[in-house]
């Protein structure tokens, strides 16, 4: 009886080890995606709040339009409230795309080429949206 049970136990242990490794790999991808989203959201929100705080401290009117990309760099060096709020909006829009980039790289490095290709296609669509918006 013991001779029969031992190979079965070894096989079950191997299956469990495989399951845990797959689970760990999935958790790693989820953590990466989660980290990028959380970081992007925090940066976007912080930038906007800082912009409002500076405007309130200086007593300047709050901006009603986003700053153009051409002026953003120079205004951020001061920094102006409008530039900080615009930066927050930009970071917010770019955050999902950044998470897609991270996923595509992770999937490609894991040899999941089909999934990486799909992430690349979705990313290309987001980029195309940005290009079409400027046309």
């Amino acid at each position: 009886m013991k001779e029969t049970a031992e190979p079965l136990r070894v096989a079950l242990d191997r299956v469990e080890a495989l399951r845990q490794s797959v689970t760990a790999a999935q958790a790693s991808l989820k953590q990466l995606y989660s980290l990028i989203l959380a970081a992007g959201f925090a940066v976007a929100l912080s930038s906007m709040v800082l912009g409002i705080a500076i405007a309130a401290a200086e007593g300047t009117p709050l901006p009603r339009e986003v700053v153009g990309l051409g002026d953003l760099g120079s205004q951020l060096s001061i920094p102006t409230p409008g530039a900080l709020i615009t930066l927050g909006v930009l970071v917010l829009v770019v955050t999902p795309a950044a998470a897609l980039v991270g996923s595509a790289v992770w999937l490609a490095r894991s040899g999941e080429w089909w999934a990486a290709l799909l992430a690349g296609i979705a990313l290309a669509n987001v980029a195309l949206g940005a290009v079409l918006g400027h046309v």
Partner: protein
Amino acid sequence: MIETLVLLGVAAFAAGAAGAVLGVGGSVLLIPFMSIGLGLDMKTAIATGLLSVIGTSAGAAAPYLRQGLANVRLGVLLAVGTSSGALAGALVAVDLDSRYLFATFAAATLGVGAYMARAGETARERAWRPAPAPSGRLRLDGQYFDPEDAAFYRYTVARPGTGVLAGVGAGALSGLLGVGGGFVMVPAMTGVMRVPLKPAVATSSMLLGITGAASAAVYLAGGFVDPLLAMAALLGVSGGTRVGIRFMRRTPERTVRLAFAALLVVVAVLMGAQAFAGGAVP
């Protein structure tokens, strides 16, 4: 102006909470509120709504991912459809009469709401269902822990191609009307792809950000973004999302599903009224 910002912040809080619980971006509630309730320009409302969609997605999807509820591979697959649809929708929206948009929106949400109210299968019944070959090749299958049942579930994903097509439709609505498309994707995932509701809601939250980003860039470049409105909406949404996530983990599946169906009926009535009123999109 301060009153508008406060009202918008409160509405965004409610929308964020509802969005996190129900897997919708929140703009499906915010856009009617801004255009009808606050009398804002429709394109500005859409742009603000899209930014709130991204905010809801980032705020809700990150904890859902850490909790293991969201399925990244499934989200990436469906993002191919939603982002493609969002591009097409944004291109078509320029020439389409807004009355047809509102009428189509109302009809679609009413149909999806009826479907959600009728479907009664539980996550437990869907667990361990065999999946067609494409699901296995793309490794879409997932697993999650459900605190409601104190149980660990695995599930398989059926008909991924049909899910991508549903994503194209959801993305097109996002591009046309500024909504995230979660109200299409959650039923598509639960009904067509056989994904349990909680992973479907979590994956939808992740997906909304990608879809919203594709559409929001167009409005941002077009100068339709009011940073103050965006800020108020984002702050409200981020607070509401945190509250909604707490409810999501502990709310029974049936309650989530019926609340979602009721929400869709309300949205359908609002949009239908807009269609008969001649549409509000300039």
